[in-house]
C-alpha cells in the first residue's frame, strides 16, 4: 500500500518531453532521494495538461499548485521549498496575462475554468504506463458491465441514445455505425481505430493515446462486443513514436490482466488488438484508403457504398471510429446516455477537444462542451490574441474547413452551426489568425498541402487542386486578374462536385470561404497590387522617406546593392534590384525606411 501524500505530476506529452520533461522527472527522483522523501512523494509522468504554451508543466497534488516553464535547474529549489518546507515557489507560478496576478493553482486559471474534460478525463491525471491507475479510475468497468450484464443490442441502443457523433470530422453517430456493422452478418468482423490524424496542427488524438491509452483499448473491446468482432486494429502514423509506445504497453498490460484475449472476465467474449503503422499520408485517414493501406495496397480511397460497415478490412464488416470518439465510450457506458446528453447541445451532445494554435496567447489542447462560443474559446480559455493584436479569423476543420470571423464570435460551436457558417468541425484543429495574416496566403497554404496530399486517383482533385494552388500563387505574387477570381470559384465548385473522396470534395473550402468573407482582400491583391496585411513579399515596397540623413548605413547591409545615394543626401532604393529582405529597414536608426 502506498504512503504517498503528495504527488508530483509532470507533463509527459510529446511537446513537453521535447522540452526536457523526462530530465525534470529524473531530477525530482534524485532530489527527493536526497531529502529522504521518496516514501511520501510520488513522481509521475502523465499525459498532456493542455497548457502547452507554458510547458513543461509540473503540477503538485493535492494542493493543485501549477508550475509553468519548469527547467531541470528549478527542481532542487522546488524540492527544498515546496516539498520540504511546504512553501510555494512563486517565481515559477503562472502569471495571468490580463490581470498580471500570479495564480497558484490550476483551478483558478481561466484556461481551465471553462473546460470540461470527458475524453481527456484521465490525461494529465493518471500515469499512462500503469494500468492500475486506469483501473482505479473505474477503468474496464464499462467493458465488464457490457460483456457480462448487457446484450449486444443493449450496448448499441445506449450508444444510439447518447448520440455520440464521430469526432474524426464527419460527425456521424457512432451508435448508428455500430448498429449497421452489427446488422451485417459475417463469420469475421473488425473494429478499427483511426489514429492517423493528418491535419496540419492537430494533436488531439496523439495526446489521448499518450495520456490515456487504456480508454481507447477498452472502448475498442466494447465496440467489438457490440458489433460481434473479436479483432481490433489501430491505424496510427509512424511519426507518433511516444503514442505508439504507450498504446502498445497498454495493450500488453491489458492482455496480461486478462482484459484482452480469450474469455475476458469469464464472459466467453474474445477480443484482441493489433497496431498497424501508417506512413503519414493525409488521404490515408480517409476510412476506405486507410483500410486499403492496412491490407498492404496503395492508400487510395474507393467509392462508398459499400461502406466499411458492410465491406471493410478484407471485405468483412468493419467499424471505423476515431480515437476521440472511442475515448468517450467507456464514460458514456458508466454514466449513462442521459448524463452525456446534459453536456453540449441538443444535436451535438458531449464535448470536443481542440488544438488551439496560431496567434493566440495560450496555445494548447483544450476540451469544451459543444455549444461553447468562439469568444469563450479564444478570449477566456485562449487568453486572447498575441501581442494585443486584432482578431481576424479562425480556421476550423484544417485543410477541409473554412474561416470564421469576428461576426461569428458568439456562435455556439457544434457540428451543424459550423457547417452552416461555411466551415466545419473537422477533427478539432483551430488556427487563430490576426490582422497580420493575409487570407489569400492562408488559402494558398492549405491548397499547397492538399495538392501535395491528393492521391491522384481522380482528375478533378489531382489537377484541380494544382491549378487552384497556381492561381492562388499568382494572386499572392500580384499577377492575378479579376477573371482569375471568377475562375477560382468555378473550379472550386467543379472539384467539390466531382471528386471521389472527402479530400477532394472539401479541398476547395478554404478558397471558397476566404473568397466569400475576404473578397476585398483578394481584390486588393489583384487590382491595387497591394497586400493589406503586409505579408505577400512580392507586393511590398521598401521606400526611403525624407527622414533620411544620408548616413549610408543601409547601403552597406543591402545584399543586392539596391540602395544608392551620396553621404548626407537622401538615399533611394532601386525597386528592380530590391529583394525585399528588410535588412535596411532594421538597420536605419532614423526610421527613414518604410514598407508598404
Amino acid at each position, binding site marked *: *500500500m*502506498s*504512503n*504517498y*501524500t*503528495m*504527488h508530483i*505530476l509532470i507533463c509527459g506529452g510529446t511537446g513537453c518531453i521535447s522540452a526536457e520533461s523526462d530530465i525534470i522527472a529524473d531530477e525530482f527522483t534524485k532530489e527527493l532521494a536526497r531529502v*529522504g*522523501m521518496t*516514501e*511520501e512523494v510520488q513522481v509521475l509522468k502523465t499525459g498532456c495538461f493542455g497548457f502547452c504554451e507554458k510547458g513543461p508543466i509540473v503540477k503538485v*497534488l*493535492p*494542493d*493543485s499548485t501549477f508550475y509553468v516553464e519548469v527547467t531541470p535547474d528549478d527542481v532542487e529549489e522546488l524540492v527544498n521549498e515546496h*516539498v*520540504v*518546507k*511546504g*512553501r510555494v515557489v512563486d517565481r515559477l507560478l503562472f502569471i495571468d496575462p490580463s490581470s498580471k496576478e500570479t495564480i497558484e493553482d490550476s483551478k483558478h486559471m481561466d484556461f481551465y475554468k471553462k473546460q470540461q474534460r470527458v475524453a481527456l478525463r484521465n490525461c494529465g*491525471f*493518471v500515469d499512462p504506463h*500503469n494500468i*492500475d*491507475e486506469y*483501473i*482505479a*479510475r*473505474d*477503468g*474496464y*468497468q464499462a467493458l*465488464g*458491465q457490457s460483456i*457480462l*450484464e448487457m446484450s449486444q443490442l443493449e450496448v448499441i441502443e445506449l450508444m444510439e441514445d447518447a448520440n455520440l457523433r464521430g469526432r474524426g470530422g464527419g460527425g456521424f453517430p457512432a451508435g448508428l455505425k455500430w448498429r449497421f456493422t452489427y446488422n451485417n452478418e459475417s463469420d469475421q468482423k473488425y473494429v478499427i481505430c483511426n489514429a492517423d490524424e493528418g491535419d496540419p496542427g492537430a494533436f488531439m488524438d496523439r495526446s489521448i493515446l499518450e495520456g490515456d491509452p487504456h480508454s481507447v483499448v477498452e472502448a475498442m473491446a466494447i465496440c467489438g462486443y457490440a458489433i460481434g468482432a473479436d479483432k481490433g486494429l489501430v491505424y496510427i502514423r509512424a511519426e507518433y513514436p511516444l503514442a505508439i509506445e504507450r498504446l502498445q504497453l497498454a495493450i500488453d498490460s491489458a492482455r*496480461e*490482466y*486478462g*482484459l484482452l*484475449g480469450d474469455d475476458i*472476465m*469469464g464472459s466467453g467474449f474474445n477480443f484482441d488488438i493489433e497496431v498497424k503503422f501508417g506512413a503519414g499520408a493525409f488521404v490515408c485517414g480517409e476510412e476506405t484508403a486507410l483500410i486499403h493501406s492496412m491490407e498492404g495496397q496503395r492508400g487510395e480511397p474507393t467509392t462508398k457504398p459499400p461502406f466499411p460497415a458492410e465491406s471493410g478490412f478484407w471485405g468483412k464488416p468493419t467499424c471505423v471510429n476515431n480515437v476521440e470518439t472511442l475515448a468517450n465510450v467507456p464514460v458514456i457506458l458508466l454514466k449513462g446516455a442521459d448524463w452525456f446528453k446534459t453536456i453540449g447541445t441538443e444535436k451535438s451532445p458531449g464535448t470536443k477537444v481542440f488544438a488551439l494554435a496560431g496567434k493566440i496567447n495560450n496555445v494548447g489542447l483544450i476540451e469544451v462542451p459543444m455549444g461553447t462560443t468562439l469568444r469563450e474559446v479564444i478570449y477566456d480559455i485562449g487568453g486572447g490574441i498575441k501581442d494585443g493584436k486584432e482578431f481576424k479569423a479562425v480556421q476550423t476543420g484544417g485543410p477541409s474547413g473554412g474561416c470564421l470571423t469576428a461576426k461569428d464570435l458568439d456562435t455556439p460551436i457544434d457540428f451543424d452551426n459550423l457547417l452552416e457558417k461555411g466551415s466545419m468541425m473537422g477533427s478539432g484543429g483551430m488556427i487563430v489568425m490576426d490582422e497580420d495574416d493575409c487570407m489569400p496566403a492562408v488559402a494558398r497554404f492549405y491548397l499547397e498541402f492538399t495538392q501535395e496530399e491528393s492521391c491522384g486517383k481522380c482528375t478533378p482533385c489531382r489537377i484541380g487542386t494544382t491549378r487552384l494552388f497556381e492561381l492562388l500563387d499568382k494572386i499572392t505574387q500580384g499577377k492575378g486578374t479579376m477573371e482569375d477570381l471568377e475562375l477560382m470559384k468555378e473550379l472550386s465548385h467543379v472539384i467539390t462536385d466531382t471528386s471521389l473522396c472527402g479530400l477532394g470534395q472539401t479541398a476547395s473550402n478554404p478558397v471558397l470561404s476566404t473568397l466569400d468573407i475576404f473578397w476585398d482582400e483578394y481584390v486588393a491583391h489583384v487590382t491595387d497590387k497591394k497586400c493589406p496585411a503586409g505579408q505577400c513579399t512580392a507586393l511590398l515596397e521598401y521606400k526611403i522617406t525624407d527622414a533620411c540623413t544620408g548616413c549610408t548605413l543601409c547601403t552597406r547591409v543591402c545584399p543586392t546593392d539596391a540602395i544608392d545615394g551620396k553621404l548626407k543626401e537622401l538615399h533611394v532604393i532601386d525597386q528592380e534590384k530590391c529583394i525585399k529582405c528588410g535588412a535596411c529597414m532594421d538597420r536605419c536608426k532614423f526610421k527613414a525606411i518604410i514598407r508598404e
Partner: protein
Amino acid sequence: MAKIKSLDELKALRDSVQNTVDVREHGDNVEDMIIVRVAMATCGIAAGAREIMNFMAHELRDQGIDNVMITQVGCMGLCYAEPTVEVTLKGEEPVVYGNVTEEKALEIIEKHIKNGTMVDGIIPSTHKSLDE
C-alpha cells in the same frame, strides 16, 4: 499478475488500487476536505513525524474516511513539540497538536476529525495560520 476472471475481481482490484489516485482526486475538491498537515522538516522527521503521518493515513484509509487530505508541511517552528499535527476543519481556524503519539493520533481521528470536538494537547496559536 493473475488474470482477472470476473467483474467482482476487477472491482476488488479497483478498490485495492484506489488509493493510488485518491490524493489526486482530493485535489479536485480541497475546499470540502478536512486538512491534516504533518510537520516534516528534519526535526519533525527525527521525532517520528513520518511514522505518525503514515499511521494516520493508514488509519483513515482502514476506517474508510475519505474526506481528509493529509499533507506534509515544512518546519512549523515548534521544534520543541514535534511531531506536530495541524487539523483544519472546513471553514474553521487550524488547530495544532504537539507531541503527537500514535495514541494521540487515534484520539484526534476519533474525536476531532470524526466529531469536530478538540482534544487535549493543543498548542495555543501565536500567529493566525501556520501557512504564513
